[in-house]
């Protein structure tokens, strides 16, 4: 079990050859409709996706299941079409801890190779540095409205 633990306990890396150009693959990752089509594990009956695709922008993918909802949120860290997309990924499945997903797309003739890496941050402090996004914006809005209410 541990012979391959070196990398196995740090990250998941998936490689896939896809029958599409890099532009098409990248578009599928940043288009809410495509995302909603692809993000539906087994008992999910409906998926909603809201994507603000820019560095520091947030996304939300809500998968509604028969017995429970699976809510995924995160912040885009890198948006480099058509080659790279990096975003944090937080959900009940990650114990509500921030994790990091990197999607890299390489040209392979008429096809593309996609390499997806999903990793946990080595420390909670490292995770905090990437959380940004909604947290910061929501905080600023709250302060703004609180000030307004006092005037």
């Amino acid at each position, binding site marked *: 079990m541990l012979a391959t633990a070196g990398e196995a306990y740090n990250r998941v890396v998936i490689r896939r050859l896809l029958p599409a150009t890099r532009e098409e693959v990248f578009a599928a990752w940043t288009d809410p409709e495509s995302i909603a089509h692809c993000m539906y594990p087994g008992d999910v009956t*409906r998926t909603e996706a809201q994507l603000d695709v820019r560095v520091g922008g947030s996304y939300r993918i809500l998968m509604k299941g028969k017995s429970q909802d699976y809510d995924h949120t995160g912040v885009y860290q890198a948006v480099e079409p058509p080659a790279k997309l990096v975003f944090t990924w937080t959900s009940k499945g*990650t114990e509500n801890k921030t994790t990091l997903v990197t999607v890299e797309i390489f040209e392979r003739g008429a096809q593309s190779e996609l390499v997806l890496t999903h990793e946990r941050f080595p420390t909670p402090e490292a995770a905090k540095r990437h959380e940004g996004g909604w947290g910061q914006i929501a905080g600023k809005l709250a302060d703004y409205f609180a000030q307004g209410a006092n005037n």
Partner: protein
Amino acid sequence: MTQAVLCAIFNRMVEYRRDLDAVFAAVADPTRRAILATLTRKPATVTEIARPFPVSLNAISKHLMVLERAGLIRRKVIGREHHCSIEPKRLRQAAAWFDYYRIFWEERLDALEHHLVARAARPDVPASGPLRTALRVTVPSRGASK
């Protein structure tokens, strides 16, 4: 991979509500991973563990403390020697997380592949244009079968 197996892995994983942060921090270091690999073969004393590494015994001791605090190894003092052995349960808990997401992403990429093929077969549907922002889309799932 059936949905039942996937659910089983997910349930086992979320059973362990205890914080795995310490475990992931511990295995993030290559020296500590090497120490764990050594101990999976068999238990060893601190001296035995330290021998192949080009760092001081003190440095190895610090690594062992991190591993112990994360619950990944057990330490027993026999005479003057500290004997270390692995605690596989904590490592299995961490492994469950990776197992779950390996399967999760393989399935998502299966779906992406189908989606790309289907899209290519319908050239009348416009490809996605420039990056869109803050769109809300509700898409009914294709149903139970997958």
